[in-house]
């Protein structure tokens, strides 16, 4: 019986038979259907996924005519992270001219809104100069990262210490105060960068700290959109599930704890988000067919509705890409192709 090379969610290679691939696709899909209460993939879509995983090619790509827009999280920091000694503006030019980027993103190496606030006057001239020298739409990106607002990094008691002691009321009070400061910082930075000429603001890994962070980001988006009606705001999520760390936060009458991608997107659109970044976390002890099928099923639930453009987060540990520092191109391009062709994304 023929075997096909694939990988586990942690990136290590395995070999699977066709029936094993099919079973993993169906199981991954079922996981999304069960937890997200979304529609399953059709038989045709399952067969399409199967063919992607059976392909012997190292690199796969979308069919001609199905190309999509690429947006980036943490754009300029990627070069810093691998210790390539180029400036931020040089990084943007590399993305523009060598990597075929459809959009660009400028970012601070400490990629959160809170640390950008004190240095925003140094970020603005870089953005202004970059805008003179580049052509694609240029975003400014950062993470809400609510964790920076509690001790030891921030002023307020850490809910992670309070909750195990059963101090739920105190934890919620801390979250409420963190939200207030986080919203101010996000609006401050977003406003300054848009005033400097940015085409949009990217909120990356939103809700990484749970529902309180999601709420803070939504409120910040709402304020920015009312200040600047033409601003483009991209919101990429941290996970397919919003953790209920606070548990009693509502936006427009909808409780934020426990939301899956379709509802996350609806709420984000109501707040004023222009582009929604659906995120599905990898499960490292499942195969890539399992993980990618799950990601595609969640993605379809967002793109099937007539809503804002959807750009999936497809990177290290998300969107069906293995959780490794150097994602293998065979895995990454399969995730890319599957999410675009079957998930019907507007971008990645």
């Amino acid at each position, binding site marked *: 019986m023929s075997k096909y090379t694939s990988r586990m969610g942690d990136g290590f290679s395995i070999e699977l038979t066709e029936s094993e691939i099919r079973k993993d696709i169906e199981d991954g899909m079922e996981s999304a259907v069960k937890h997200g209460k979304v529609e399953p993939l059709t038989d045709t879509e399952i067969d399409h996924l199967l063919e992607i995983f059976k392909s012997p090619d190292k*690199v*796969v*790509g*979308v069919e*001609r*005519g*199905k*190309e*999509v*827009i*690429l*947006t*980036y999280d943490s754009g300029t920091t*990627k070069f810093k992270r691998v210790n390539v000694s180029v400036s931020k503006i040089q990084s943007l030019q590399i*993305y*523009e*001219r060598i*990597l*075929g*980027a*459809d*959009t660009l993103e400028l970012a601070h190496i400490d990629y959160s809104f809170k640390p950008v606030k004190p240095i925003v006057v140094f970020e603005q001239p870089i953005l*202004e100069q970059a*805008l*003179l*020298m*580049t*052509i*694609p*739409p*240029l975003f400014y990106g950062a993470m809400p990262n609510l964790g920076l607002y509690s001790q030891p990094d921030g002023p307020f008691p850490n809910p992670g210490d309070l909750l195990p002691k059963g101090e739920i009321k105190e934890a919620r009070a801390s979250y409420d105060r963190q939200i207030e400061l986080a919203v101010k910082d996000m609006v401050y930075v977003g406003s300054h960068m*848009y005033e*400097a*000429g*940015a*085409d*949009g603001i990217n909120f990356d890994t939103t809700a990484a700290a749970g529902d309180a962070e999601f709420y803070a980001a939504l409120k910040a988006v709402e304020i920015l959109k009312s200040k600047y009606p*033409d601003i*483009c705001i991209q919101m990429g999520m941290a996970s397919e599930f919003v953790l209920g760390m606070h548990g009693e936060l509502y936006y427009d009458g909808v409780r934020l704890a426990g939301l899956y991608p379709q509802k996350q997107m609806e709420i984000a659109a109501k707040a004023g988000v*222009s*582009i929604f970044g659906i995120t599905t976390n990898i499960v490292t002890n499942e195969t890539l067919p399992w993980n990618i099928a799950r990601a595609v099923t969640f993605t379809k639930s967002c793109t099937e509705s007539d809503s*804002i*453009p959807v750009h999936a987060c*497809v*990177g*290290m540990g998300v969107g069906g*890409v293995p959780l490794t520092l150097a*994602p293998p*191109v065979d895995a*990454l*391009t399969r995730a*890319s*192709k599957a999410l*675009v062709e079957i998930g019907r*994304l*507007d*971008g*990645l």
Partner: protein
Amino acid sequence: MAAAHGIASGIGGIRSAGDLVGRMQVSRGMKTEAAKKYVADKLKISVADIADPVVMSEIREDLDLGRVNAVPGAAKGIDAKFRIADLLDIEINCVNKFKKRIQFEKRSKSNE
């Protein structure tokens, strides 16, 4: 990852019309298929040519919308974006900011 995604699924940025399609999504919230059609209509090409670097290189040269290769005198940054805003009939934030900074409207009127 950027390179792999670019090869697998990207339109191609300024090598083709990826930035132009991106502009329509950023400025008007268009879904990608609608944005491609809009750009194709404006450029008077087929949607299939949107991601074709051979076709788009010529168009970008003719309309001076910016290209990958560093050609002397060709649009390279803000100047390309002025033309893109005009071609696509959109507002581009940095173009408007630039006009304000150089008092573009005042100077244009004084030249009339």
